[in-house]
């Protein structure tokens, strides 16, 4: 019960904090995600590119589509205000790498996978939640929900929910416990270490 209340408060906090841009519409957000999906699909299904190249292109696509500065600041919570300018630059750079790497891998790579926009609904006063289904030739489809907001530079994703779990909330809770124990420099080090993991080798 307490956990649920905290989650609701955090969601409300994100909504209240996240700025003053005009609201998007389900149609606008749907087109934005649909466009992103088709670009990602054509990259992932294109022949002649290695997996690393495909993932790099998807990372670039996601980098342009996520509002990573907004998300990064939010998930750091109160520690953002206490951090130095250099720490913020370091943290945001590593957070971006961490998120893009995680999601480009989680979303991509499978030959013949298809993204479909299922529906789009208003979420709070300013956001739209777009539900997509990612079908793969092998394995069950993955349902993902993209929380979209209209920012100054156009539509941006401000959260992703896979299997009902919010990326923003998960990261916020994980980061809070690291910052509590080791401070912002400990969090920066944790992110740096995590992105040092090796993937498959030739």
């Amino acid at each position, binding site marked *: 019960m307490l956990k649920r209340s905290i989650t609701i408060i955090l969601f409300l906090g994100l909504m209240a904090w996240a700025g003053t841009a005009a609201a998007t519409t389900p149609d606008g957000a749907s087109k934005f995600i649909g466009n992103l999906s088709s670009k990602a699909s054509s990259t992932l299904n294109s022949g002649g590119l290695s997996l690393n190249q495909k993932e790099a292109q998807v990372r670039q696509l996601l980098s342009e589509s996520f509002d990573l500065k907004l998300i990064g600041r939010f998930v750091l919570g109160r520690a953002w205000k206490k951090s130095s300018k250099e720490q913020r630059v370091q943290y945001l750079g590593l957070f971006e790498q961490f998120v893009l790497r995680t999601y480009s891998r989680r979303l991509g790579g499978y030959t013949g996978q298809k993204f479909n926009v299922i529906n789009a609904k208003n979420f709070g006063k300013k956001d739209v939640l777009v539900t997509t289904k990612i079908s793969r030739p092998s394995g069950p489809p993955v349902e993902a929900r993209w929380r979209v907001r209209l920012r100054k530079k156009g539509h941006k994703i401000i959260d992703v929910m896979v299997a009902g779990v919010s990326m923003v909330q998960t990261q916020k809770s994980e980061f809070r416990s690291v910052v509590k124990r080791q401070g912002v420099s400990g969090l920066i080090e944790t992110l740096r270490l*995590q992105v040092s993991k*090796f993937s498959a080798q030739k």
Partner: protein
Amino acid sequence: MRILQKLAMRYSIRGMARSLVIAAFVAAPSIIFAPTASGAGFDEGWRAYQAGNFAVALREWSTLANAGNSRAQFNLGVLFDEGRGVEESRAMAIDWWQKAAAGGHKQALHNLGLAHLFGRGVAKDFDKAIGFFKQASSRGLARSQYNLGKMYAVGFGVEQDQSQAFKWIMMAAESGVHQAQYNIGKMFRDGTGTDADARSAARWFLAAANQGYAKAQNHIGVRLARGDGIQRNEIEALKWLILAEKSGHELASQNRRDLSMKLTIEQRAEAKTLAAGFAPR
């Protein structure tokens, strides 16, 4: 056998000669085919992985991994870790990485270090994590050397020890890791873990800058402008600051503006041309 027959046909070998060729190949399968078949399985797995056919990669590498091939064992661990072509399983990833590490696989040792550091798929154990990173480092893995250095520098999972930090970061810097070169530059500048040495600081900032690292480009730009540890050269200084600014380094932007105001139009133009011709190396 079919392949051998085709080979014999291709080279128009007939009758007795053809039989001899086939017999010779069949008699020495372990010499001629075993290494090729093993390599082919790995390469086939790699091609399938790159093409997004993870099920095929899983099949190819599983066969080799079960036969004790440490490269295949490592990659199989990655498939389990990333949940590609198979249900995500950290425990299985760890299991395969442990097998690969037993064969001395550097990247497996590194990933096991991370797993123990964060308690992912195994119990959190800093000593084991450090042990794995040290093993990988001793095999020349720069990423592990850098990790160790940074862990000692901030006291992450180990007691803070700047001389240890300097030792490991220097190893990574010498291996060409640009962040390590930048950090060694800072350690020389500040006298952290070593004696302060402005010339060495400038040398390492320049090494990282040459690789395209914006932070280092800003640092060397400032040092060149002041003649701090390096011969003063304002045109070169402006070149580095332009490059750092181009990469989005905010402080470099301010430094570039300040320096530009002191230079002539010709000097600014020269620095701009130099920056345009820069290629990381």
